[in-house]
């Protein structure tokens, strides 16, 4: 089956208001936008239906979209500012080895504050670390995950590094997280050496 056919099956099963097919112009793969409350049912159907059989979860990818302003000019020359609120998206890529087909699913979370999606860990064990990593790096709360801890970053790290507005703290446990530019350090050392030489000359 092609991705389009799989998405058509999902739409047929769950209705067009729950599953929406999106394919921007020029992009080769379609994406099914799934309502958060249908995600678990859709994944279950995807994995258990013998014709779909998508038991392989390739990856979970969350992405962060900051609020933005889009300027558009209408026909009469008036500038219009359209405000797009920030959002988070969590994308899933499923596949089937036996049927050799693939499909992208996506959940759009309308807010960047405390984003939550249902966990699919109990349906697919491969989701465990994928979900933990997205929680770690982007702060997505996977509702129903039994052990949602940081995976890559230290457990007491503040903030979510992959967010677009992430500001790194100057230090962590007394270790500075940035260091001076080596070029600046070199110039500083040269200046110090010159000053020392000048002082020695003065003495002699």
């Amino acid at each position, binding site marked *: 089956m092609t991705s389009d056919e799989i998405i058509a099956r999902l739409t047929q099963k769950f209705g067009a208001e729950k599953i929406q097919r999106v394919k921007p112009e020029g*992009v080769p*793969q379609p994406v099914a936008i799934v309502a958060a409350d249908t995600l678990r049912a859709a994944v279950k159907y995807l994995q258990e239906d013998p014709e779909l059989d998508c038991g392989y979860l*390739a*990856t979970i990818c969350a992405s962060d979209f900051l609020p933005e302003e889009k300027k558009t000019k209408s026909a009469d020359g008036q500038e219009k500012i359209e405000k797009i609120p920030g959002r988070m998206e969590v994308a899933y890529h499923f596949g089937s080895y036996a049927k*050799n087909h693939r499909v992208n699913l996506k959940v759009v979370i309308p807010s960047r504050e405390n984003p939550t999606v249902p966990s699919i860990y109990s349906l697919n064990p491969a989701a465990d670390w994928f979900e933990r990593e997205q929680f770690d790096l982007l702060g997505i709360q996977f509702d129903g995950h039994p052990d949602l801890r940081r995976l890559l970053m230290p457990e007491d790290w503040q903030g979510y590094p992959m967010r677009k507005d992430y500001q790194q703290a100057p230090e962590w446990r007394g270790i500075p997280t940035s260091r001076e530019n080596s070029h600046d350090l070199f110039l500083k050392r040269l200046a110090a050496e010159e000053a020392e030489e000048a002082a020695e000359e003065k003495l002699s």
Partner: protein
Amino acid sequence: MSVASVSSSGEEMLLNMGPQHPSTHGVLRFILRTDGEVISAVEPDIGFLHRSIEKIAEIVTFEQFMPYTDRVDYLAAMNANHAWARAVEEIAHIEVPRRAQVIRVITDELNRIISHLLGGVGALAMDLGAVTPFLHAIRERETVNDIIESLCGARLTYNYVRIGGVWYDLPRNFADRTLEFLDHFEPALDEFDRLAGQNKIFKERLAGVGVVSAKDAIAHGLVGPNLRASGVKYDLRRNMPYSIYPELEFDIPVGQGILGTVGDCYDRYWVRIQEMRESVKILRQAFKMLPDDKTIKAKLPSVLKPPAGEIYVAVEAPRGEMGWYLVTNGGPKAHRGRVRTGSYAAMSAIRFISRGLMIADLVACIAAFDTIAPEVDR
């Protein structure tokens, strides 16, 4: 002695393994809960090599990101380069010239051979206490390193593949040198297999250890040789073909249960040995397919701006499916790039597979899954 025959004293202890441990293949720590020698739970503590390559992908342009992909998997940098190049080419609709396609297949397969030699079979033997096979593997790898050095100047992090093609054309005697190496390598591989694979101790250390059924392999997301060792015949080069792979003739080795159980550590070793033989076959064919047309790079706009959207594209790397989930916003940089690697899934699966194993078998398991820490942490 099988695990079942070890009597349990009922006293458990926590044991730390790593972050600096000769068998962890990089900086990686395990916390083991053991009852004597028998493991009851394993928690891999990863992240020591986390360089946030995915964040860097958002900061630099598509072309500038290529050297970073080397560091995703430094044993198979060509395949990692290829994965990124293909992801961008797919979404930006770039047609790669035929000569570049063939060169990519040649470098991919050369890289697959040396990656399997070092990580898949060489280090496996060494982790089991056999140092000699490792040195044999390293000796063969050295020749390929020299060959690839003549191609791109680098021996480990190649940065050779470009979006829309490759960096340089093959040097003058590249084909001769490679074919000469292949003639030498085939008997050398047989010798290696006799030396390590037919050794009684080696066999007994791997037979029936860390068995993964086909169903579990799919559920835990194992890919590549680890998946095929469990009996699932799936290879992206054949099932979702890219580049010139559809025109090539090669077999996909699948775990046979040679020592009794399908999907044990010995099957994983065996699949990798067979894959190297297939790579040799592919290389011999690919050199005959090199076209005379010397174009090696497609004409690209000075600033590459793929359309806004998202895409998942994968290639078959030595450690299995390496795929990029790429989110673009119409600009010259990726909005989000997420790389899916084979070692990551294998490491997360080790927690489930290693229950009930002995500590020494866990070492065999880590090595037989061919996990390397940079690919786990990225």
